[in-house]
């Protein structure tokens, strides 16, 4: 393949994976920003989204139904987890890490015992092949990237332009003051946790036709999401977006011109550099 072809493929693949990654990581960042907790089970909501979507699609054959039901199921699961796991331990940072590790295993094993250890896929709702001069590309991937961009924009609007978004930002800045001003902090916590889970689940639904629903698929998503929020700064939506693009594009470029393994190494080095020189991440609160 010619150099332009390779460069184009790298940028295309990088943009698409950057957008999907941003959508996957957004929930993790949002939950940390508002609730100050690290949700280790985040990847499992992504997995749950894909698995529920598989069931819905097999039963109804409607992708739209899957796009609605899967985030609802994930969101409801998150609400239950919030009420019965996180609230009783008062969102203490260390305790929530341990509790969400437990949640990770509970969700994973539940899916394993109900859905089974299989990797199952579905046909994409829209399928066409884009034929570039150098190579072909799945049209559905472009559609996914577009939908991810729309959802990112919608979340942005939700956080910056609505009352609930205002409450979230207020809680993020100062929990006690927000409560003093009548912000229902506990309900905002629950809402943020459910929203984070729902966003991850939507990402899971969207990738289902590209990949397969498998009970272990959440681990990789979690790892990448953590990389994104560490580089971007936990709690910063802008940072999440920037970091997701950075990881997506370096992954695309390094994978195509060197090797995909090197791409992962480069991303890990980024994380290490950020942790050493810019503890709060690029857009985090610790950053100047």
């Amino acid at each position, binding site marked *: 393949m010619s150099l332009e072809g390779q460069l184009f493929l790298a940028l295309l693949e990088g943009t698409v994976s950057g957008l999907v990654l941003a959508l996957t990581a957004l929930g993790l960042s949002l939950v940390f920003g508002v609730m100050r907790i690290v949700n280790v089970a985040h990847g499992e909501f992504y997995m749950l989204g894909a698995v529920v979507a598989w069931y819905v699609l097999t039963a109804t054959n409607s992708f739209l139904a899957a796009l609605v039901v899967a985030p609802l199921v994930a969101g409801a699961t998150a609400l239950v987890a919030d009420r019965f796991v996180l609230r009783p331990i008062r969102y203490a940072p260390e305790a929530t890490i341990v509790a969400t590790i437990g949640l990770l295993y509970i969700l994973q094993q539940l899916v394993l015992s109900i859905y089974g250890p299989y990797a199952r896929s579905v046909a994409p709702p829209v399928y066409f092949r884009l034929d570039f001069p150098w190579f072909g590309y799945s049209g559905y991937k472009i559609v996914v990237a577009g939908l991810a961009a729309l959802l990112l924009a919608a979340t942005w609007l939700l956080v910056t332009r609505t009352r609930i978004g205002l409450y979230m930002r207020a809680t993020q800045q100062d929990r006690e003051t927000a409560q003093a001003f009548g912000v229902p902090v506990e309900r905002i916590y629950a809402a943020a946790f459910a929203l984070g889970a729902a966003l991850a689940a939507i990402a899971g639904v969207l990738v289902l036709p590209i*990949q*397969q629903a498998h009970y272990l698929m959440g681990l990789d998503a979690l790892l990448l999401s953590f990389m994104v929020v560490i580089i971007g700064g936990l709690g910063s939506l802008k940072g999440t977006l920037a970091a997701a693009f950075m990881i997506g594009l370096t992954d695309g470029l390094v994978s195509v011109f060197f090797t995909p393994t090197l791409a992962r190494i480069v991303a890990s080095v980024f994380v290490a550099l950020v942790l050493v020189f810019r503890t709060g991440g690029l857009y985090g609160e610790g950053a100047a």
Partner: protein
Amino acid sequence: MLAGKLTRRQALKAAGALAGAGVASKLIGPLSIDPALRSTIYAAAPSGSPLKIGFQVHRTGIGAAYGKWYDRTATAAVKLINEKGGIAGRPVEIVAEDDGTDPKRGVEVVEKLAQQHKVDFIFGTLFSHVVIASAPRAGELKIPYLVVSEGYHVASGKMNRYTFQPGITDVRAQVTALAPFILKNLGKKITMVFPDYAFGHDHRDFFGQAVAKLGGKIHGLVPIPPTESSFTKYFPKVPAGTEVLYHVMVGPGVLTFVKEMGEHFGKKKPKLFGFIDSLEAVDIGSPGLEYLEGSYLWEAFPRYAGQYNTQWEKTYRERVGVDANGASKSDPKDISTYSHMFGVWETLFVIKEAVEKSGYKSPSDYKGFIETLEKIETFKEGLEHPQGTKRFVGRLHQGFGQQFVSQVQGKKLKVVHRTKIEEGMYTPDADYTKQPL
């Protein structure tokens, strides 16, 4: 020491009782009693103490699709063995334990089966990283360990006297036998896409050797890490001028891999030669796989009925519960791993043959079991070996069988070529029989 003494004493008791039971069954036999009643007689007699075979199975993890079918095949084979009077007159009992397709867990499973369940033999492991981790522990525990992995690790001499692979041909033999067909019919400039661990490395090394010997050229190598879930970024590494793309992939991402390969190359694709591993447990008619039409795939045992037409293949297929399209009889979407799971069936019959020939009674007879198995040279085609006759090389602990090349025609696989056993055989380097027991 105590355990050893107890076992010997038990063995003596069992042997005595066995002789008694033998007489009893001879007496009862001609009266042609109800088989169910006969089995209760066996069970009631101490001679009927079951032969316990430990089954290390990938129920979860990346090997789950294979594990499910290995499990079904083992169950079907044991049912048949027990219907026909068990092994050396003893009923067979499978003790299955999930290893999560995880090497660390694999070692624990071997220990658990050997020490806690006190099984007579362990068998059934598939994924090469689990085999390579578990085999040394089986060697230390001195328990015969029969894998169904198709990796070259057993024949390489790197395992031990206790590790065998009699039921499925190893990768080195497979690719050696297939290379002439690929070079003659598809092209000489070949790029290989393979998983970046032991199993893929066997492909790379031995197919590379075979190609060089026949005057072909490995044009490019594209290793893919085993946990990868997106493959688009690997395809630009297939160099221009590639005539044949040789692909072999395993794990949950196989369907994504094949689909993305089709999307990438479109009509300008090189000729494709794949290992069915890239499509095991996957429906050839899946959306996105239309481009495979006309391409070639290796099969160890043809998935579609009628492609290898023997009465034994038919009975085997029926017994395991596979329909004419290679799917489960109860769920047409549940595609089998037909080119691998026959090895489970055949390995159980190898255990039966070696136990009966060596007069194995208890773990104190492992020496006889192993030496007897090492001396066997052929497993004849039949219901016990439906995939075909196997040549067994005792010093390598490895079986060798015929291979098939199939072409995708009308979204099905049609056999177009069959290799002879000799085409895959190579000069053995290793000799396990020299190792102490």
